[in-house]
């Protein structure tokens, strides 16, 4: 491997020997193509015409009135597929194409990354397999169906809690046996090097656009930028461009599940300890001896016990503040945005909104807040209905 893939002491590539050649090949290909003129222009063209970039920055007036500050939504929910995930799958999918790979595999939690991979598999005519935990298959069934319509095979993962962690375990095991012809299209800014770097590269367009949109449309930088954190891709995607703007407060919101004190949550940075899982050193929810905890969250996309290595570094340095939002607040925020704006947020993104709602009354009314609305909530309607039946 050419680089160590470290963010401070975090990251690295803690994988079995058999995967090293594939990660080396991926690293080599990424650095060969990511600034290549042809690659860049093909990706730009697809981002615009296939995915729908740039995404708008929308001033959510009625939601703002409710919260008591000026809330702007970065509308990643409007992209094709319904989430920021397509930024990464287009980038990595194109990389796979340039590398001459014809088979894709991916893990998925909420099904958004699985869907975004299935779309790209169809677009490039590649055979696609999506690994998904059985619990997630049930709670995100709409996305399962969409993936199949795009021609992907969805593989049930029974092990563990049947969630994202277990899907990654099985995808890694499958990759081990098919490493010579299969491209593993990893879905978040975590896992072994070079994935955190690659995924970040394809997601930083969110922050680049958002920062410029703030300057053009509001005439100044925001005071705060909020994003939910599962593995960390939409968050690093929007934070990165603001890191050097020291006056812009950056807040990452993790899944507080039932509550932090119940232990039934997925708030890795808030409540975890440094460990090694899925190829990287990072904060991890684990017991004293290092056995990984089962996590719980109303949102499948945040229901994960580890987190991207760069976020660990940003936590330690204090540049980004990480907090948790509990399921109940998240469902409230989902309803609030739906009622005030007619926008159904993904339950993942609703974590960021929930934190903001919690700041109500504490913010100056002129405060400008950008929330990364990482995805839309169509996939979550069934879950919300279960917890909060709509009254006629």
């Amino acid at each position, binding site marked *: 491997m050419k680089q160590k893939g470290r963010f401070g002491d975090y990251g690295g590539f803690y*994988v*079995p020997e058999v995967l090293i050649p594939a990660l080396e090949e991926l690293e080599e290909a990424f650095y060969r193509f990511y600034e290549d003129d042809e690659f860049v222009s093909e990706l730009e063209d697809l981002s615009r015409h296939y995915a729908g970039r740039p995404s708008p920055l929308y001033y959510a007036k009625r939601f703002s009135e409710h919260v008591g500050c000026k809330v702007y939504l970065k509308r990643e929910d409007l992209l094709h597929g319904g989430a920021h995930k397509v930024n990464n799958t287009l980038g990595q999918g194109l990389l796979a194409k340039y590398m001459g790979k014809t088979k894709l595999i991916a893990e998925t939690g909420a099904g958004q990354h699985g869907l975004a991979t299935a779309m790209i598999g169809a677009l490039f005519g590649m055979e696609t397999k999506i690994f998904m935990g059985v619990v997630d298959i049930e709670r995100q069934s709409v996305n399962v169906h969409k993936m199949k319509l795009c021609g992907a095979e969805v593989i049930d993962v029974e092990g563990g809690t049947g969630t994202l962690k277990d899907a990654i375990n099985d995808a890694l095991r499958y990759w081990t046996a098919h490493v010579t012809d299969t491209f593993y299209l990893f879905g978040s800014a975590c896992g072994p090097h070079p994935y955190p770097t690659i995924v970040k590269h394809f997601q930083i367009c969110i922050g680049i656009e958002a920062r410029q949109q703030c300057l053009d449309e509001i005439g100044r930088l925001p005071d705060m930028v909020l994003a939910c954190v599962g593995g960390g891709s939409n968050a690093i995607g929007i934070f990165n461009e603001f890191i050097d703007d020291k006056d812009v407060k950056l807040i990452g919101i993790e899944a507080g599940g039932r509550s932090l004190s119940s232990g039934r949550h997925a708030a890795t940075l808030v409540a975890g300890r440094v460990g090694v*899982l899925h190829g990287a050193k990072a904060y991890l929810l684990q017991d004293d001896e290092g056995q990984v905890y089962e996590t719980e969250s109303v949102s499948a996309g945040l229901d994960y016990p580890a987190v991207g290595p760069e976020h660990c570094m940003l936590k330690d340095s204090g540049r980004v503040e990480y907090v948790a939002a509990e399921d109940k607040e998240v469902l409230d925020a989902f309803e609030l945005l739906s009622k005030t704006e007619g926008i159904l947020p993904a339950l993942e993104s609703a974590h960021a909104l929930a934190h903001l709602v919690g700041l109500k009354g504490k913010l100056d009314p002129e405060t400008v807040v950008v929330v990364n609305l990482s995805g839309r909530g169509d996939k979550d309607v069934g879950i919300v209905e279960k917890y909060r039946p709509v009254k006629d």
Partner: protein
Amino acid sequence: MKTYSQVFSEVDGAALIPFFVIGDPDFETSIEIVKAAIDAGADILELGIPFSDPIADGPTIQKADIRSLSNGMTVKKALEFIKQIKVHRDIPIGLLMYYNLVYQYGTEKFFSDFHKAGVNSVLIADLSIDDADEVADPARGAGLDTVFMVTPNTDAERMKLIASKTTGFIYTVSVLGVTGSRNELSGAVEGLVKKIKGVTDVPVCVGFGISKPEHAKTVAAAGADGVIIGSKIVGLIEENLDDKDKAVAEISEFIATVKQALAEGPTQ
């Protein structure tokens, strides 16, 4: 304490190395099974401390990890387990670990405590030679041999690098894939063993997918110094969960059969 090199020079042909998950299905039964395996002819033991997320393992060993963990296995109890085994017989023991358990215990302390208990080496499945510095120095400092893996897709240059950091034996993975018993032995084994032997004098043991006495024979004939058998044996525990005596008997018998096959030497 008996060393790997003593064993490799004592056995004629290849050493027989069964793998067990410590505490599978429970502490007491696991002790009984491992002792029986030693009595039946095991030359070296490969033991795993169960982990919640064993990404290098197939379904058989995953299930063994779950059985062991749900019956209360811990890293501390594994230390006690090894001490008890060493009282039964001074046999070299290689631990097969996932890094997080070592890291949480404290890498240096883990190596030193387990070396004192009687472990000869600690192979970390999810740590490649590139991060060897994190473990190789503390391991040698604690008096352990270092064992690393070579796989069918490891190129010659990297093999040399791996060999240069290895003191116990090279753990040669016979197939691209995770652990699991397989009906056919990978055709790549012979060439792979020869290739490694071409670049180093460090002993070579072969594992992953070896499930039958004939497989062991073929691997030995290819020049391997040791044959590691995991999932096949762990599967015998799974098949006999309701009858522990039968599990012990079947494992003893299997090990004795493989031992016999290895002693007969190559058939051709």
